[in-house]
């Protein structure tokens, strides 16, 4: 049941992006078998024996009254993190070989992250939509209505133009004032070195950078039964290709590209995850939560 609602194909039948995000997140949360340990309120963690020099305000006097021993009551730290999603809205994100385009998949993923952070964890979340320009910027905030603004921006983010990471990242650095999580959702059709070199400054500012590489199954393993003329969705370049090439050389090149991007990202301290649009969204959510848990 949970998987059915997390299936991207099923999600396309839900028109409201908020409902999509709610369905994904609540379905994902319900599917976890342990109590979530990522509350935002102050939570008791453990008792620690008092040692001189410790702050007396943290002594649990009730325990002292019962045991006449001084224990410090330790709480899990309350940390509000900041999530910024960089969404690639170039034309190549329109591609699909089945019901869900890469852009839709990216929207669902971003919306689910926003819902998870904004509603469940009360974190500040912001959005940057870019192609070769910075098209939309919503400052990370926890204000009332922030979630709706983010989802609205996602809904209005239609793919166009081509991808250029340099200019939006440059502007983005101007907006960064606080450390946080930077999630980049893109198909990363560029040279891995160029991508990582462009994104490295984000990491230098102390951000945790996560690359969600969204690809269609046909982009990884294209299947052509006859010689075909392909049109680049970003450059409009046409090219006649053969099934043999798509079956052999293309796949080798794509695999090398994916491997290089993963290696270069991890080398730069970034997390990289390949998201194929026919797979459920919970992988992305789990990855994000795992990282947040580990880094905080």
């Amino acid at each position: 049941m949970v998987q059915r609602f997390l299936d991207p194909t099923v999600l396309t039948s839900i028109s409201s992006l908020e409902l999509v995000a709610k369905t994904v997140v609540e379905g994902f949360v319900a599917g976890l078998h342990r109590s979530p340990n990522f509350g935002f309120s102050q939570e008791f963690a453990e008792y620690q024996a008092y040692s001189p020099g410790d702050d007396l305000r943290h002594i649990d006097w009730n325990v002292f009254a019962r045991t006449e021993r001084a224990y410090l009551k330790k709480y899990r730290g309350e940390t509000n993190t900041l999530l910024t999603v960089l969404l690639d809205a170039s034309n190549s994100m329109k591609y699909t070989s089945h019901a869900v385009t890469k852009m839709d998949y990216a929207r669902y993923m971003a919306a689910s992250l926003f819902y998870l952070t904004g509603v469940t964890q009360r974190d500040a979340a912001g959005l940057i939509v870019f192609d070769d320009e910075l098209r939309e910027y919503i400052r990370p905030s926890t204000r009332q209505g922030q979630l709706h603004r983010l989802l609205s921006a996602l809904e209005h983010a239609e793919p166009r133009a081509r991808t250029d990471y340099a200019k939006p990242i440059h502007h983005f650095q101007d907006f960064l004032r606080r450390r946080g999580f930077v999630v980049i959702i893109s198909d990363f059709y560029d040279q891995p070195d160029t991508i990582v070199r462009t994104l490295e400054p984000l990491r230098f500012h102390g951000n945790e950078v996560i690359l969600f590489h969204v690809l269609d199954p046909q982009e990884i393993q294209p299947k052509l039964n006859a010689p075909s003329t392909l049109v680049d969705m970003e450059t409009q370049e046409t090219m006649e290709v053969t099934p043999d090439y798509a079956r052999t050389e293309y796949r080798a090149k794509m695999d090398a590209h994916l491997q290089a991007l993963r290696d270069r990202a991890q080398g730069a301290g970034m997390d990289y995850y390949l998201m194929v649009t026919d797979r459920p969204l919970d992988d992305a959510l789990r990855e994000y939560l795992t990282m947040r848990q580990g880094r905080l």
Partner: protein
Amino acid sequence: MGFLAPWFLAGAAALGLPLYLHLLQRHQTTPRSFSSLMFFERRTQSSIKHRRLRYWLLLSLRLAVLLLLALAFANPFINRSAASMASDRLLLVVLDDSFSMRAGSRLADAKRDALSVLHARKPSERAQVMALGSQLAVLTQATQDAGELRSAVESIGPGDSRASFGELGRAIRAMAEGIATPIELDLFSDLQKSAMPASFAEMALPANVSLVLHDVSKDAVPNWTIESVDAPGQVWDPKKARVEAVVAGYHTPAATRTVSLAVNGKTVAMRTVALAANGRTSVEFQGLDVPYGFSRCEVRIDSADILPADDVSLFAVERSDPRRVLFVHEPSDSRSPLYFHAALDAGAEEAFAMDTIAVEQTTNANPSPYALVVISDVLSLPAPFEQQLQKYVQGGGSVLVAAGTSAAHRPRVPLFDERIVGPHYYSSEGERFLTVGASDPSYPFVDKAGRLEGIKFYFAVSVDPGNAQVISRLTDQTPLLLEKKMGEGRVLLLASGLDNLTNDFPLHPSFVPFVEQTARYLAGIENRSGARVVDSFLDLRTAKEQSVGVEVIDPDGRRPLSLKEAATTKTYQLSRAGFYQLRLANGRQDLVGVNPDRRESDLDVMPDDVLALWRGNANAAPEQALVAPSQPAQEQKKPDSLWWYAVLLLLIAAVAESVVSSHYLGTQREGP
């Protein structure tokens, strides 16, 4: 190789279409959007090359389909020599078994020659045997069985029909339409000139038939024959019967011949006639003393020629007593019995004997012995006699009623029992007289009497036709002749008199045939001839005589009709010469003498130029018109059509193209 319709080869220009589509036209695939071509390389050249190689088979098949289609329409053929086609040809052996083949040893010679031709053929060659008379009789199917072919030839006996080369040509043309292979037609015949049709086109043969003529005649030989016999079919007074025969000679010198008349095998009269060279003369036998009933008669000539079968002419004669006619008239009317009796005697050849009686003497008269009763313009009939007449008609008798001026004031016509509308005295009116306006010529007494045209009617009684059938009307539409069926008999009404007061009919030439035919019609006596010609047809029954059995006994005493045929068949073809005994559907017995067509007696052969033309070798020398069986058509080139092969290949190529193209196109459809 040639083409019967070479202009259709222009359709081969359509070959350019698949060439253009496959090779010249750049392959147009629907462009497909892809997110990025970053990892693709342009492989256009290899792609087109691959596609061309892949569609090479389809292109070849499409070119083949178009080329074969154009070829099929152009109807290609190759000229093959007859010798090269010998294994394919059909040997058609046709033997003439007409009456003239009885002359000398012609039929035996023809059969011997036919057997030798069949023996000389290759064992693999198919042959068929037929017999030619007035029809072409198929004796075997096309077969290689030498025994069957030999038996068929040996089974052919002398016939009595007249040969018809026109029928041969028609049958061979019909047969050749269904046979694509060459046909060698070997005709064994005396090639009688009289067997030629009126038009040479009727005996023309198709192009794939080569004619080989085997003439078994010995040129034109002298032959005398009884060309025709004019004899009555019925005789009432033997002394007055007359037989006239015509004796003819073909290619004969002047000679004296004896002609005899025989009745039931006994010669009753002989005449010696002198015949000029190639001449004909008539011989008359006065009186034909035959016994009552049917007699078999023949006229014979002592010809001593090679065709003795045509020296005799058969005919049958039936002798019977004259039919009695009762003529009833007013005592004051002496004209009508006079005219009627005179006409009956003149026209009916003693077939009728007329009794005249005044109307007041009919009280105790009995009409039943009479074949016909005539009531001529009587004022009234005695009631007992009228009742007798009604019984007589109901039982199958016939009455002729003439309604003259005596009937003018009566309300109804006696016996005919239809209302009299009123009299028409045309002589006192402006027209003075009327003539016949419309007549039904299907009645013999109307047809033979010239449709009663030119007769002036000064008086007529207008009778309401009622249930009667109007045969003739005057120009003012007054019914003149009416027929009414009453029970088994019939009554014929003439709405005018039989005297020359109410009309001038008795003085008119058509009165005699009218009286004679009316008497025959009403008495049920037909004009019969006791002689027929072979292959003529006998009417066995009328449309009203269905499911009544008939009987035919042929000259050999056999019954050729099966029980089913005897109950249903309407006509019978007289295929043999001799006497046929008949029992017709109306119960009447009959005897018919059947003679061969006398044109068979003229043994003159067809001219050489006609024979050469028939063989399709009009320019050949006359002595080459007739050639040996092994020589013909060896140097002759015959077009052998390749149309079937082209169509067969076209079908195969079309099916293969469909399979291949559906495979390719199906693959493309399945693609994303």
